[in-house]
């Protein structure tokens, strides 16, 4: 940990320059938000063209199979196009609903992102090794080619997102306390398109916790998160989603992992009417590692939708995925994942496991774990299971005097325990456990 230094973060306080807003998902004849650097303007223009080329998704496309994405077309949303106002604060930040004070208090840096504004609370004053910038204030970076993904919402948000930030961590800096990013999602008719890039210098280490929640009103979040892990760096990244039951979210998380770097990524999905997470780990460098986890719990008529990619480009790489979920009432979960071992990625190991508990009649879980292997000197496996709570387990607990409802709750908690155990931040575990408890109280 770096010692106390005088706070001097590498951004300027900017005043909004309003250029209006546009109707969401209508792409023809709309201008993109310009950056100061021409690289960004042209990239955004490319993204807009790409979004037009791909077109709004339809469930007949394989990558959108089972999804309820057409719901989004019925929303009338606008996207803000002004450059955001960025403020630095001293002292204790105000708490958002559902966010634990202990988590915020434990953070080294707390960021609150809302459409058109960013509030920064740097509690540990570690700006020497950490900087936060708006994308338009940086010169062309080495990772700009990774910003544009082959996906409508990614391209769309790149073209139109005003809230696009870059967090850089210096070489060899080890920041133990988490960087907490909370997203304040507006209700009503605003589409919120936050984008965060975390760039880890060689040999550095960071812990990022994202928290996405909203007031009970209709909202749409198109979130994008890109992490670029320098050689030998470590990133712990957890995304916790607890939108209100009218919320829609399409999140893209992509990681580029260099040699000897290690990613630990966890996604925890509980809220929203339709919540999709696409998580991609690209093992670009030799000996790169990725550990991917998820816990999700759907109830009511929710749909929780996960698409993952473990892409091995380099030799001796390792990835392990464990996604566990529960569905209750009339909810629906989808897991679709791909392990791809490219030619040349020899001596790689890739594992992929998806387990689903179906808690009530009417609930549904679809699971599609895919493998695509182009190299033979590898070890790969995947497994997936869908089923109810084992009645024998309930019986065992009942015979110890525990009533059946409580027994089921204990079993579900135990089911998720495997995911919770490996999480680096105990404060994050506390938040996630509470969200699981709320779900259990609602449904069992």
């Amino acid at each position: 940990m770096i010692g106390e230094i005088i706070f001097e973060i590498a951004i300027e306080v900017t005043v909004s320059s309003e250029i209006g807003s546009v109707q969401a998902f209508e792409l023809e004849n709309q201008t993109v938000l310009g950056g100061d650097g021409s690289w960004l303007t042209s990239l955004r223009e490319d993204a807009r063209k790409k979004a037009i080329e791909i077109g709004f998704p339809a469930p007949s496309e394989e990558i959108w199979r089972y999804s309820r994405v057409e719901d989004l077309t019925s929303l009338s949303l606008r996207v803000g196009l002004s450059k955001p106002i960025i403020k630095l604060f001293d002292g204790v930040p105000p708490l958002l609903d559902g966010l634990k004070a202990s988590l915020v208090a434990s953070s080294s840096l707390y960021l609150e992102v809302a459409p058109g504004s960013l509030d920064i609370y740097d509690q540990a004053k570690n700006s020497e090794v950490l900087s936060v910038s708006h994308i338009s204030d940086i010169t062309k970076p080495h990772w700009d080619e990774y910003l544009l993904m082959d996906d409508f919402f990614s391209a769309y948000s790149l073209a139109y997102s005003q809230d696009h930030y870059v967090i850089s961590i210096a070489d060899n800096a080890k920041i133990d306390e988490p960087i907490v990013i909370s997203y304040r999602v507006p209700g009503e008719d605003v589409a919120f398109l936050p984008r965060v890039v975390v760039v880890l210098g060689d040999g550095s280490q960071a812990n990022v916790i994202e928290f996405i929640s909203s007031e009970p009103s209709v909202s749409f979040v198109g979130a994008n998160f890109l992490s670029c892990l320098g050689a030998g760096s470590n990133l712990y990244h957890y995304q916790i989603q607890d939108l209100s039951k009218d919320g829609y979210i399409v999140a893209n998380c992509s990681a580029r992992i260099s040699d000897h770097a290690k990613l630990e990524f966890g996604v925890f999905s509980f809220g929203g009417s339709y919540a999709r997470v696409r998580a991609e780990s690209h093992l670009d460098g030799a000996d790169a590692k990725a550990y991917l986890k998820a816990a999700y719990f759907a109830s009511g008529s929710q749909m929780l939708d996960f698409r993952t990619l473990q892409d091995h480009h380099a030799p001796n790489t390792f990835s392990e995925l464990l996604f566990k979920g529960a569905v209750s009432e009339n909810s629906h979960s989808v897991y679709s994942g791909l392990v791809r071992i490219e030619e040349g990625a020899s001596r790689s190991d890739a594992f992929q496991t998806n387990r689903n508990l179906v808690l009530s009649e009417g609930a549904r879980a679809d699971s599609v774990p895919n493998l695509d292997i182009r190299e033979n000197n590898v070890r790969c496996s995947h497994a997936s299971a869908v089923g109810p709570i084992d009645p024998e387990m309930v019986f065992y607990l009942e015979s110890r005097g525990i009533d059946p409802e409580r027994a089921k709750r204990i079993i579900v908690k135990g089911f998720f325990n495997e995911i919770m155990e490996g999480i680096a931040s105990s404060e994050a575990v506390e938040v996630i456990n509470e969200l699981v408890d709320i779900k259990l109280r609602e449904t069992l």
Partner: protein
Amino acid sequence: MSTVDLDLGKYKLGWSDREDYVFKPKKGINSEIVKEMSWMKNEPDWMKAFRMRSLANFERKPMLQWFAVNMPDIDFDDIYYYIKPIEKQVSSWDQLPESVKATYEKLGIPEAERKYLAGVTAQYESEVVYHRNREDLEEMGVIFCDMDTAVREHSDLVRQYFGTVIPPNDNKFAALNSAVWSGGSFIYVPPGVEVDMPLQAYFRINAENMGQFERTLIIADEGSKVHYIEGCSAPVYTTDSLHSAVVELIAKPGARITYTTIQNWSSNVYNLVTKRAIAETEARVEWIDGNIGSKLTMKYPAVYLMGPKAQGEVLSVAYAGEGQHQDAGAKMVHAAPETTSTIISKSISKDGGKTTYRGLVHVDEGAKRSKSFVRCDALLLDDISVSETKPYMEVQEQNAQIGHEATVSKIGDDQLFYLMSRGLSESAAMSLIVNGFIEPVTKTLPMEYAVEWSRLIELQMDGSIG
């Protein structure tokens, strides 16, 4: 000691006979060809109408995207849809023309017939040229004949079931088959009858650019039992042939059907087959599917478990060598309570070959206490070959247990070393390991098929290992 030079890399059954046909229409498909076919076959009007309806479906239906990517260069107008090799069916082996007989000698059918088989239906091009039923089968009331004969002689029975499991509008290739089908087997097993010997048919494609569209329908009435085996081989040609069969199985309550396929088309054949079974209450259907030949195979045997306690099983083995793509799998639909299914898939890729497992397990709401287990193992023998696994699981019932496991691996150096230290050559050691890998499927085959199957794998391996 003398040695014989064998070119094992060359396709073993890859000879081709001089073409000598009674009727050979132009390439391509249109309503005139379909009408002419139906007229030549002397079919009842309902079948002609069925063909015409299907043709309209074929023309209307688009190629599915995931189908189209595998065959960007297929040309439906460059294929013969119907060829009739000799004028009349013959009732004894001796009456067959020499060239046709020679083909089957090479395939070893007479031997097999003498020793094991209950009946032989050998298909040469589109018409069944040779067919014999064992008398005791006839006495039990079992009908086993080619599909064209069945349409003429058992019209009511055929009409009741034909196209009910796989309707012509199911997919583009099912529509194509429904329009131009020719040959294939028809089996009806009366209630309570158990056929203890496997029934068997071989298929051959001979003429260049010749489509083979056989149509098989098996009905096992209540409590009956039948095992049907088909084996395929075709000679090598330079341009691509299309094989698109439709196989429908109906297992009535308590019946049991086992359907075994050994597919060894030569490496220029597109093999696009729709196979589907309906299993009623407490019925059991097994598909045993071995894919070793063809340029591209896309085949997903399905079982629709419609009645309580019905069972479905698919055992699938695929081998893809140079230039081959085996896109195989299985589909299980659980539509009733307490239904169970198992899918076991083993695939081997070598010399740049590609194997894909593509499967679906679907559990309907209300199919309580259903269970399904899927296991896919892939073996990659070198670093230029490719394996894909795409298992879909759709579970709409809470009280159902669905599991899937898959692994991809290579042959362990220690395994090879162990066998080679016992004096086996590298290729012999590899063959042994591969045969061990697919053994769970091989052991379900009747003995002569298991032997042929192991031999085919060895030939494939030998021909390509340096």
